[in-house]
C-alpha cells in the first residue's frame, strides 16, 4: 500500500494507483489522478461518466464494466474512447476512486 497526497488530501492506493478506500475520494483527487494519467482538463463529459460510475458502484456494490457505462451513462462507446483513451473502463474507475474492474487470472 502507498499513501499519496493529492491536492493536500491523503489517499491510500494499491500498486496500480487505484484507491483502496473510495471514501477518500473527492473531485480534487479525481482532477489530480486525471492529470497523472494525462487527461486534462476534466470536461463536463468526463464528469458525466465519473459521476455515473460512482453512483452506479454505490448502488450495485461493484465498479461498472465498460458496456454498462456505455449503455447507461449517456456517453457512447466511441466517445468513451475519446475521453479516456486506451482503457476507458479502467481509467474511469481509477479517476472515480473505484476498484479496478477485473478478471480471474
Amino acid at each position, binding site marked *: 500500500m502507498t499513501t499519496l497526497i493529492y491536492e493536500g488530501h491523503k489517499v491510500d492506493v494499491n*500498486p496500480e494507483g487505484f484507491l483502496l478506500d473510495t471514501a477518500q475520494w473527492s473531485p480534487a483527487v479525481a482532477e489530480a489522478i486525471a492529470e497523472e494519467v494525462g487527461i486534462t482538463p476534466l470536461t463536463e463529459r468526463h464528469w458525466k461518466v465519473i459521476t455515473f460510475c460512482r453512483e452506479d458502484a454505490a448502488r*450495485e456494490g*461493484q465498479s461498472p*464494466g*465498460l*458496456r*454498462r457505462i456505455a*449503455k*447507461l451513462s449517456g456517453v457512447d*462507446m*466511441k466517445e*468513451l*474512447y475519446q475521453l479516456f*483513451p*486506451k*482503457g476507458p*473502463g*479502467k481509467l474511469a474507475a481509477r479517476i472515480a476512486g473505484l476498484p479496478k*474492474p*477485473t*478478471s*480471474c*487470472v
Partner: protein
Amino acid sequence: MKNLIILGAGTGGTMVANRAARELPQGWAVTVIDPAETHLYQPGLLFLPFGARDEAKDQRPRRATLSPRVSWLQDEVRLVDTAARRIDLANGSPLHYDLLVIATGSHIHPEETEGMAGPGWGETIHDFYTLEGALRLRSALEKFRGGRVVIDVVEMPIKCPVAPMEFLFLADEYFLRRGLRKDVELVYATPLDGAFTKPTCSRQLSYLLERKEIRLETLFNAASVDGEARVLRSWDDREIPYDLLVSIPTHRGAAFLGASGLGNELDFVPTERHTLRAKKHEDLFVLGDATDLPSSKAGSVAHFQSEVLVANLLRTIRGESLEEGFDGHANCFIESGFGKALLIDFNYDVEPLPGHFPIPGIGPLTLLGESRFNHWGKLAFRPIYWNALLPGRPLPVSTRMSMRGKRTLKTLQTAA
C-alpha cells in the same frame, strides 16, 4: 405439493436438481426446464478444434444425467412473472413455483459486434464456445496452411476466462506438430491490460506467452469486424488483419431474464455474493454463469455454488436465515500444451497462488506451475463430471477455498 423449479439443466442446474431431489423434505417436487435433448460437457470443446474426435463422449442424453426423482420438462421459458410466481413456456401451460432456481448459463452473441456474424462467419471467423463452432473450426484448422491467427476476446465476462489462453497454447503445439509453426503467427487480442491480470499469475505465467512466441495486443476492445478485408478493428481505431479469426464473442444471459426484468445490461441476474439469493427476490436463487457475480464463469464454481445453494433452499423452506457460504471459490486446470497443464485455486479475496493441491507439500497436483499430472487430471475429469459431479456425489474438494499447501506472496519473496 410445493414446487421447486430449476430453469436450465447445464452443470449448475443438473447438480442442484439431483441434490435437491435427495435433500428436500417430503411434499416438495423438483422440476427442471431445459429445451435441449442432450447435456454437453463444455470443457471438451477446447480440444475439438485440434483434432480430438470426442464429440460423442462430450454429450449424454439429458434424461440420463438427471435423478429419476427429477421431472424434466423439455420446453423453453418465455417469461417469469415473479409477482405471480408463474413461468410462461413456449409450448406448455404456465407453471407455478414456490421456489425458483435460475441456472440458464451464458451464451455467445457474435451479432453484438458489428460485422462479426456477417461475411466470413463460419469460414474465416470462428468460435469454439459452441459444439457447431468447435467442429467448424476443426475443419478450418485442418485446411489452414499458414498466416495470422488472431484470438480475440470481445468483452468480459466470458465463460472460462482462461480458455482463450489454453486455445493459444494448444494452437502453438498443433501447428508445431504439423510442421507449420514457422508459417503461423499467433496473436492474442484482449480488452484487459494483460494476458494475466492478477499480480502473482502475471509474474509466474507470462513466460509461457514469450516461450510460445504469442503476440499480445492488450486493452483491445473490438468494435467491428470487416469480414471481406479480414480486419478486426477496435473502438480506438487500431486494426489487426487476420487470416483466421477465432473470436470469443460477447456473452449474455438468457434473453427471457431481460424480458422478465430479472437481468442486468447483459441479462445476468444481480445475485447476493455469499448466499446466492437474487438481490430483489426472496424466493429466487441463482448459480453458475447466470449470475452477475465477479466469480469465474466455470464449472467448478457452479459446483461449489450448488452446495451452498441447496443448503440455502433448505434453510428458506425451514424459515431460517441464509448461510453466507459461497466465497467465490474456483478451481481450474489450464492446459499449457505438450501434455502439461497448470492448476489454479482461488476465491473472491485470494488470488491464485503457487503450491500443492489438495495435500500440502505433496500434491499430487501442482498449483500455478506446469506439470504432466495436472494434464492427466484435466483429462480424467470428464468421467468424474458425468459419474460424480452431475449426480451430486461428494468430491474431495472443499466448497470453501483453503490456504493449505499454498505459498503466499510473503513466502515467495523470502524464497527469492
